[in-house]
């Protein structure tokens, strides 16, 4: 049994989750990606953030796909707010004719879907927007990126979810 403190604590620099948001822009009637933002975090803290925004969507996607492959390889769960984030991404990959991409074994959790399935928002059960939801949960939005807000929401709702939902 090793009782040296250095061998008895979890790694608080570990990247357990990848909070992921995209900035969508309407162009010629279709949704295009104008920017993305990623925040790697664990239950205790935010570890690192990466983002990109540029007019060349194909270049933008290349950087993003690099990060997503990193997640896949390191078994990091991807957490988005909207359910359509990954479908939009898939569509743009096809549109730009980017090959040799795989989302196999990529684990994606949509907070919007979790809210819809496990929380109650009145008779019509319409899920609020991220800003509305943060206001209701009293999560401060000032000077904070969307991915940081996702981290807070996830930590708040995570303990109340049944087993298997976020694992």
């Amino acid at each position: 049994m090793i009782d040296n403190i250095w061998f008895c604590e979890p790694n608080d620099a570990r990247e357990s989750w990848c909070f992921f948001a995209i900035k969508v822009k309407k162009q010629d009637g279709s949704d295009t990606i104008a920017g993305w933002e990623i925040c790697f975090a664990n239950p205790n803290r935010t570890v690192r953030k990466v983002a990109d925004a540029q007019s060349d969507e194909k270049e933008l996607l290349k950087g993003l796909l690099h990060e997503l492959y990193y997640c896949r390889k390191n078994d990091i769960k991807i957490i988005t707010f909207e359910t359509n984030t990954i479908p939009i991404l898939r569509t743009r990959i096809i549109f730009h004719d980017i090959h040799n991409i795989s989302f196999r074994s990529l684990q994606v959790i949509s907070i919007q879907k979790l809210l819809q399935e496990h929380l109650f928002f009145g008779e019509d059960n319409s899920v609020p927007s991220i800003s509305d939801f943060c206001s209701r949960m009293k999560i401060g939005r000032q000077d904070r990126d969307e991915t940081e807000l996702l981290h807070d929401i996830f930590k708040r709702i995570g303990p109340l979810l049944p087993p298997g939902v976020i694992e």
Partner: protein
Amino acid sequence: MRDNLERVTIVLAKEQHQRFKDYSKKYHSSVSQFLRLAGENELDENDGVDDLKLRPIFEQLEKTSTNVQVMQRTLQKLEKEIDSITEQKRRKDEYIANHIEELLLSSGNKLSIPEIAGYLPYEQEKIIRGIEKLEERFVVVRIKQINGMSKWKIRGDPNDNN
């Protein structure tokens, strides 16, 4: 004139015409015969040169294409192996995490990593990974000790004030 021939008119410089005529006479031929032969030679020569020059390039391209295909197949194989290793590791981590959860739930106490290692037959490193998993599932709460090792307790214990 024979049926399989066709008459064409060409324009030549006077000096050029003279040179062709002199050359033809020297070899007991006509200017027409000389120009026909010269044209055929030009065509034969260029066709051959093109083939000869391009053949190694085509061969190299074919080799490269085969190499790319082999590399693509290797990459696909590697991707599958990564997925399989990741999946195996995930299952093993989950198995250990479940055991730690059972231990913490049944004991009701807060336990440090070495204390958990005293109860369970896993390497300390695996137990740390199991605890990390449990934190990520929001199953346990970390209790930081002043000047000591952190301890973990099952989340949601009504008697727990932490």
